């Protein structure tokens, strides 16, 4: 792990106020992100996984400062960008760019491809006239499209091609970090792999770092270096990809991995199944957010919020039942919640 992280996030929180009534009085706070800390090294792919509504996309938007954080710190390449206003943030936007989930909505249908990709270049006065066209052509080639398509409009492209355009736009400023918010989840499975491979290649060739937000564990296993598992606005486990996939420690990580389909009928697997729905982020349960659905929960989990503790070799877990050596002391889960693998 590199000594100076490219991105450092500490205690990041985002609470959305819920307004009610004519006077718009704040009735409640949606705690979308509730104290998240992690680091991303240069050239590293950190995947953020979790189910819908766990706050993973919000984390991505906070890092790119598309949303204002409620609390916490975002340090980008040594500069604290948390409190920078729109103008002061401008130079730092060159470092961190974003690829959006919906390749149909994130490209302005009225602009040509050339206009879309050149926009970041114009914003920083990086290229003009023939040089600009040259750079756009270069970017298009970099993402596997023919340079001639610069005069076309987004509606003339397929979903996968559009996402390539979104990636080209993100690359235009030579960023060090790209936040990818579910970049392939809107695409057909056959196209997903192509776009993922493109992103992998670009990462290797250009030494990029990614914060890759996804709900798809297959995608994450394919592209990630390290993985942060989020549940209800908090990171519950942060580990190297192999370590997490081989032996998830947090009960939620176990359940998440157990729920992912494995294309091998003979594969042995953890059959931990959790019941119930995610509690509302408006009123998250006290103590460990997961205790309402955790088959191992003890009294302490209901009272005391478990910190995200380092276990050594870069692994961090937020669970009272995992000791410092990485052993799980949960005993047997409540029987109704476990299905034995019969086959």
């Amino acid at each position: 792990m590199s000594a100076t992280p490219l991105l450092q996030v500490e205690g990041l929180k985002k609470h959305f106020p819920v307004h009610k009534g004519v006077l718009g009085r704040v009735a409640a706070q949606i705690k979308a992100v509730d104290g998240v800390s992690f680091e991303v090294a240069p050239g590293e792919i950190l995947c953020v996984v979790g189910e819908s509504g766990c706050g993973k996309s919000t984390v991505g938007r906070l890092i790119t400062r598309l949303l204002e954080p409620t609390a916490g710190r975002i340090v980008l390449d040594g500069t604290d960008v948390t409190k920078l206003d729109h103008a002061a943030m401008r130079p730092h936007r060159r470092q961190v760019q974003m690829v959006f989930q919906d390749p149909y909505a994130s490209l302005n249908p009225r602009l040509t491809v050339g206009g879309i990709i050149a926009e970041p270049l114009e914003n920083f006065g990086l290229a003009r006239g023939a040089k600009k066209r040259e750079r756009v052509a270069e970017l298009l080639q970099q993402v596997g499209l023919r340079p001639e398509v610069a005069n076309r409009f987004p509606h003339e492209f397929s979903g996968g091609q559009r996402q390539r355009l979104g990636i080209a736009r993100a690359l235009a400023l030579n960023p060090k970090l790209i936040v990818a918010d579910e970049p392939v989840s809107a695409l057909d499975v056959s196209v997903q792999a192509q776009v993922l491979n493109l992103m992998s290649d670009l990462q290797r060739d250009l030494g990029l770092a990614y914060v890759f937000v996804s709900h798809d564990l297959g995608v994450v296993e394919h592209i990630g270096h390290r993985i942060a598992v989020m549940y209800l606005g908090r990171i519950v486990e942060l580990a190297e990809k192999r370590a997490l996939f081989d032996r998830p420690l947090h009960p939620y990580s176990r359940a998440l991995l157990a729920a992912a389909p494995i294309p091998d009928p003979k594969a042995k697997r953890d059959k931990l199944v959790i019941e119930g729905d995610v509690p509302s982020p408006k009123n998250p349960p006290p103590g460990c957010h997961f205790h309402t659905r955790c088959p191992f929960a003890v009294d302490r989990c209901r009272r005391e919020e478990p910190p995200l503790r380092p276990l050594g070799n870069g692994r961090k877990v937020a669970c009272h039942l995992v000791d410092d050596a990485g052993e799980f002391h949960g005993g047997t889960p409540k029987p109704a919640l476990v299905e034995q693998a019969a086959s």
Partner: protein
Amino acid sequence: MAVALPETEARPKRGFARFARRNPTIVTGAVLLLFMALVALFAPLIAGDPLAITPINRLQAPSSEWWFGTDHLGRDVFARTVYGARVSLIVGLSVAIAAVVLGLVIGLLAGYYRGLDAVIMRVMDGLMAIPAILLAIALVALTRGGVLVVIIAITIPEVPRVVRLVRAVVLTAREQAYVEAAVATASSGLKILLRHILPNTVAPLIVQATYICASAILIESALSFLGAGVPPEIPTWGNMIASSRLFLQMAPWTVLFPGISLALVVLAINLVGDGLRDRLDPRLARRM
């Protein structure tokens, strides 16, 4: 679209015929409006002096000499009707342009800068409460009157409608993912507003402009009819109807021709507006 385009380029005549067949309302309205505009523009070539008083020929019925007859002072109704088109079209066009430009700027600001929104919209609510005709009468009474005062008086109450429309479009457009993407690439607020948000307002604004134009012409005529509009020495359809209404039974043509012209112009503009609305934004048609 990609299929139809080369064909229209290759055979423009056929392209226009097809356009006319598919959009009869736009074409009918536009042809009628173009005719009226040409008449107004070349009024001196078409008609004689609209102010010449020949008492000996007063209240003459339409004939080969006086196509539309003469009024109670012996003035040529045809000439007055033709010249009256000038005032109506100038007022309609000016009010539409002024209201759209003002409304666009204010609406963009209100929609994009949330801090200004509440203040601007309350002011607009206030303006909307003022009846156009009363405001015009007050303004004309306070000043010397004239076409400019009439234009200003009609524009003020029309602006809030445009502001509301533009603001609504901006509020929808600013939530688009491509606007977020523009923020992420460090585009300035002004650039986002002009490049990504403004184009969304064009189609609904063109439609709204036609409705404003039609209503401005009607209000101008009403003001002239009430004697609160442009000075009486300038012939307008409104003051022609007003001064001739006493002779309606004796000489109906004095009221009929300016009345028909007024109805035709407003109809033509509304036809164009309806046609454009259906063509530019089918969703808007359902909303309005």
